């Protein structure tokens, strides 16, 4: 392995691995950008990151390869998925452009930037690779540790401060402080009386004698369902069930069954035929 790394050119196996996995990595990156749903983007990005971990291992960075899997795909991508779960499912990306022609200009900018970057690398003289054979001689982790705790020890300390600041910052940002005391039940009832609104308790849900489930709106004297009878949570979710047509459907099913038993198919209404065909 060390002899390979010291070589100017890589082995055939590494070349094969590079071309196969590199293609997959680029496809994954493109999918991250162009997938419509955030979950699909996150999964493609996780795939790209795992492939990058393999490339780190191939480049002799054994410690970084493992850390990449543990930290990036293990922790960071899971954090992303959690936030997508909290936020992204309802927040679909609108495809309407707010600035006219912005997408094409952005693509053009990206293309130009890429050409510039690749051209720059192509023109640089990067042909003598020393390889990590000597640097990894005492082991990659030992070599990194020796550098981190001597030459880069100050940066390492600063990193600790940064991590603590980030943890505290995340807690401060997501923790919601109550700005005022929650109202007690007594205060709420007094407020209702003062405003003269809904002074008696709210009407109960359910249409008696047919259903008394909590997600079914009770009927007012004139027969219209009242949304007030259903809990606010169900109302917000739009989970109020409407049973006004259920009795008619039951009747229709009963008629159909009796007709099937009596084999009186000739007088079956046309609507039922169509329903059966669609099923």
């Amino acid at each position, binding site marked *: 392995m060390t002899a390979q790394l010291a070589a100017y050119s890589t082995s055939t196996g590494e070349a094969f691995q590079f071309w196969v996995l590199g293609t997959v990595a680029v496809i994954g990156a493109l999918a991250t950008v162009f997938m419509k749903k955030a979950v699909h983007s996150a999964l493609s990005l996780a795939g790209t990151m795992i492939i990058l971990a393999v490339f780190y291992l191939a480049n002799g960075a054994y410690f970084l390869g493992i850390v990449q899997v543990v930290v990036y795909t293990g922790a960071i991508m899971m954090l992303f998925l959690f936030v997508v779960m909290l936020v992204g499912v309802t927040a679909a990306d609108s495809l309407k452009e707010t600035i006219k022609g*912005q997408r094409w200009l*952005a693509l053009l900018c990206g293309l130009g930037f890429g050409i510039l970057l690749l051209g720059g690398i192509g023109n640089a003289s990067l042909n003598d690779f020393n390889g990590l054979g000597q640097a990894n001689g005492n082991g990659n982790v030992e070599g990194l540790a020796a550098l981190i705790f001597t030459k880069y020890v100050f940066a390492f300390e600063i990193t600790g401060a940064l991590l603590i600041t980030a943890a505290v910052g995340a807690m401060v940002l997501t923790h919601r402080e109550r700005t005022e005391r929650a109202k007690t039940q007594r205060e709420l009832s007094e407020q209702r009386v003062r405003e003269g609104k809904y002074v008696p308790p709210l009407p109960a849900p359910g249409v008696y004698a047919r259903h008394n489930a909590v997600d079914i709106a009770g009927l007012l004297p004139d027969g219209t369902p009242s949304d007030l009878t259903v809990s606010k949570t169900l109302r917000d979710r739009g989970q109020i069930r409407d049973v006004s047509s259920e009795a008619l459907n039951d009747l229709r099913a009963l008629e159909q069954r009796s007709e099937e038993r009596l084999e009186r198919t000739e007088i079956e209404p046309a609507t039922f035929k169509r329903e059966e065909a669609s099923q």
Partner: protein
Amino acid sequence: MNPVNYLYLSALLFTIGATGVLIRRNAIVVFMCIELMLNACNLAFVTFSRMHGNLDGQVIAFFTMVVAAAEVVVGLAIIVSLFRSRHSASVDDASLMKL
């Protein structure tokens, strides 16, 4: 194969990430593209470390990872609190300071 190809791949991934930041307007996807750019930089660092034959590049890549972790924590917290106040994760909706 010349190991310079790793640098080309890194440049390509960085470009894709930068284009994604410009194109997408879902804040979470924009953030993922930033992560992609950071990863591409790490790959370049590791390749340069191999090129020069010392481990300094890998140490820098390690620090980049730590900073990226801190950045993700704070950034996602900002996105969550933005979503709470605006009920949207689109970067267009955070336009309170627009004239």
